[in-house]
């Protein structure tokens, strides 16, 4: 068994092998691998006795179920209206400079992906960003750089 197959089996043991188990399993694999590789999708299809096309169809529908490799820390800066008004472009610019990566890209060491997301539900405290599941409201360019600096140190 490959490492991915083992991971999938472990998650299926935990969440079950019904169709309703699919989302939690996909989410768990993204949680530990940072994306869904083709191998992972095929392994999940096999484990749940679904067609790979079906699993691929579900996975590719959802923005947070990445099917391209992402960094260990995925930064999602809200780009929707009020955060746009309150300066999300400056935040993104500062992070691009800091991480030497373009929006949508991943740092060469595989540590950070810098993405945009639609409204994160903190419009009264924009701009706001998510780093994996952690939320950081009321940021500025400087504050964002400081926060990501903390993750850089964390390794």
């Amino acid at each position, binding site marked *: 068994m490959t490492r991915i197959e083992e991971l999938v089996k472990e998650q299926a043991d935990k969440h079950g092998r*019904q*169709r*309703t*188990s*699919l*989302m*939690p399993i*996909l*989410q768990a694999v993204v949680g530990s691998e940072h994306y869904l590789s083709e191998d992972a999708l095929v392994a999940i299809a096999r484990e749940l006795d679904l067609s790979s096309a079906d699993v691929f*169809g*579900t996975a590719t*529908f*959802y*923005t*947070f*179920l990445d099917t391209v490799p992402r960094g260990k820390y995925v930064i999602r800066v809200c780009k*929707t*209206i*009020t955060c*746009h*008004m309150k300066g999300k472009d400056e935040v993104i610019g500062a992070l691009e400079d800091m991480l030497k990566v373009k929006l949508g890209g991943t740092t060469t060491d595989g540590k950070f992906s810098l993405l945009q*997301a*639609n*409204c*994160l*539900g*903190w*419009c*009264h*405290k*924009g701009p706001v960003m*998510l780093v994996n*599941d*952690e*939320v950081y409201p009321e940021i500025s360019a400087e504050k964002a750089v400081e926060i990501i600096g903390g993750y850089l140190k964390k390794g």
Partner: protein
Amino acid sequence: MENKMKKVDLIFDQVDHLAILDKSLQRTQDEIILDVIESGLRGRGGAGFPTGLKWKFAKNEEADQKYVICNADEGEPGTFKDREILTQVPDKVLAGMALCGYCIGATEGYIYLRAEYNFLLPMLHKAIDKFHKELKKRDFDFSIRICSGSGAYVCGEETALMESMEGKRGEPRNKPPFPTSSGYLGKPTSVNNVETLVFALMIAQEGPTQFKEMGTFDSRGSKVFSVSGDTPTPGIFELELGMTLEQFVNEFGDGDTKAVQVGGASGFCVARKDFKNTLIGFEGIPTGGSMMLFNSSRSMYNILNDYLEFMEEESCGQCTPCRVGCQQLVKGIEAVKKGVKPPAYLEELQKLSDTMRIASKCGLGQSVPNPFNSIIQNFREEIIY
């Protein structure tokens, strides 16, 4: 002018949720449902269906299993009140779900929580564990689980939500059948917004009169508003329904408000000249809570463009009017702005958006004309020049 905007504290008030549940379990399902109908409570997630009727339909179905779903997908731009409710008074949400379960005869409840709120999971799991222990003591058969979303606005639409829970692409279903007859896994299901469930609990506690006496004929009670944009006081406020936009802007504006977007990206843009005659509520402009204020420094072109790009990205792509329509509207206003198309092209685009209202399968595509037509009509020059 009299400012009759009243702040209310039904949602965030800390109450003994278990005492309310105990009291309710002594009454019959029909008595509680009648109270909820009598109160005039309408769903707080946007569509505004009468909550008591929804529960009655679900109750009247014969089935071996029924489900309660708490819709915590909250993806409408400018809405953040459900997150706050779940954070401040999670026990009231859980008790509201149990109350609904009791009324319709469901023993299983699910919270569909958007991925963006995953940081709430540890706290919610703790609250659910505690709640389950209390239910066990009472020998009351009801359990709650959480399903996480994965970043798709359309999954807030109740049938897309259930597709997602079933492990599929979040593509809305045809209605009918409605979820109350065939919902999650084909079983009768009551899908309720977070805020709706808490109001239902409070109505079970207080009786229908207090709630019914607030608000207007079509919009009873109070509502939690999410206020953002150009305002000195952004945040979350529970207000009595029935106010005009003028009253709202007097309270929350920065003195230079030129427009308010009521109801988020799928809502309507109201210009200053109409503040006075516009009621916030089902007889005027309804909102799931999102209120975004814009002052005269803002470009309405950029705002419309943001809304349309949002819809284009979030469209599930299942039906052509919405999938292609959103793309064409984004391209169309850009072409007019750049002078590639004449200003009269905007009328063509409005025809397209009217077609989307009629021909789209779900509320997402059907509501794109709301921001589009209202912004084009009110701020035509800003779109062209």
